[in-house]
Structure formats: C-alpha cells, structure tokens
C-alpha cells in the first residue's frame, strides 16, 4: 500500500492539442481511445469530416487513434499536433 505522500497516477488526462497556432486543452480518461479527443479537436478546430487528420507527438510520431492514451504512452499535459498527414500542391493531378 502506498504511503500518504506517494504520487498517484492520474486517471484523467488533460491533453493540449495544437492546430494552426492555437492550443486547446481536452480532458479524457487515460483509458479512453485517442479517437475521442481527435474527433472533439477536429470539431472544435472546424475540420470535422476530414479523413486525413491525425494527432502527432512533438517528435512527429503519429498517435494511433485506436489505442487508449495509456497504451499510446500519452501523459498528462502532453502537447499533440493536429494536422493532415500530407500537404501537396501543384499542377500534377494526384488521385486521392
């Protein structure tokens, strides 16, 4: 049994999502799927309905949306980037 001064792991996380220069906090249980915050963030940032968005760590590693935050190794107050996986331009036609 942990002593009175032991630090208990937080079951509820506060995740900071960054998109185009704006940072917003989203609360989620650590056993919730990453997809839950991804969907809420996309709605709040006005990009709902887009299929190419994902959350990335500051080290540019995509966070698997099907995993829980705990299993994905995401910790309280961690900053994640909401962005598309690909950005292209040009006259060349690329089939999506």
């Amino acid at each position: 049994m942990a002593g009175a001064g032991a630090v208990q792991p937080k079951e509820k996380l506060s995740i900071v999502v960054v998109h185009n220069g704006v940072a917003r906090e989203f609360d989620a249980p650590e056993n919730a799927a990453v997809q839950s915050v991804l969907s809420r963030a996309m709605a709040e940032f006005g990009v709902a309905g887009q299929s190419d968005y994902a959350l990335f760590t500051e080290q540019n590693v995509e966070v698997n949306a099907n995993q829980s935050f705990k299993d994905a190794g995401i910790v309280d107050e961690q900053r994640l980037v909401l962005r598309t996986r690909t950005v292209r331009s040009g006259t060349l036609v690329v089939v999506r």
Partner: protein
Amino acid sequence: MAIAPQLLEETYLRLRSCGQRRRECHLYWVASWNDPHRIIRVVHPAHAATMVSVEIDMAWMNAFFLELADRNECIRVQVHSHPGAAFHSGTDDCWPAIRTPGFLSLVIPDFATGAPDLEGAYVAEQDAHSGWNGVSPKERITTQLAAAR
C-alpha cells in the same frame, strides 16, 4: 488581407530563387492571431518539388505548427508557383495545410518570373464544405503599405 509590398516582393523572389524556372515552390504567409488580416512574415517550408508538384516535409510541418503556437501566429495563406497559368488544381484542392473556411490559397503563374504585382495570379478561398471558390486576388489581397499597418 493586407501584405506589405516588401513581403510580396520577397514572396516572388523566394519562389523564383527556389524554383529556378524549373520547379514549383511553396510558401506560407503568416499572421499574428492578434491581427490575423495582416501578413507579418513569409515562411519557406522544407519541401520536395518537380516542375509540376510540391510535397511538404511533414516533420518540418509538425515543428512549424508548434512554433506557430509558441508565437501566437497562424498560416493565413498558402502560396505556390505554377509553371504556366495560375489556377487551383485538383491537388491544390485536396491537400492544403489548413482546411478551415476562409483559408486562402494563392497561385502565382510562370514560376513567379513576372513583376510582384499579382498580375495573372489566382486566389481560391476555402468554403464551409471543404470546397474552394475563386476570388479576385486584388480584391482579397491589399498590397498598399498603409493597409498593411
């Protein structure tokens, strides 16, 4: 949207110097969230390019999004050059960095070899349904210094 003439000139110079009349190039016009209608700097992303395409380095983009948040800035306009006429291609429609209503995409013709005056340029604005609508460059982008202040 207002941009100082010096930044518009920098835009053409960068597109030209990177593209060397044989490759497209891509830039971002950045504003502060405190005054999002005034462009304050031009950013040249890490990218791969051919004569007819540009692909942004997404590790660079990830770091850039973090930098924007730290500086309270945003991408307001994406800018890229075409080898010939300026228009919004299917690629431009499908793969922008920002997909929110009001985001502007500026295309500069002829590898930006012309005068920095937006002549022949094409501007598309993203609508609420992820579609794009062509708008007049000179109506949406003001280059007078007074307007940029």
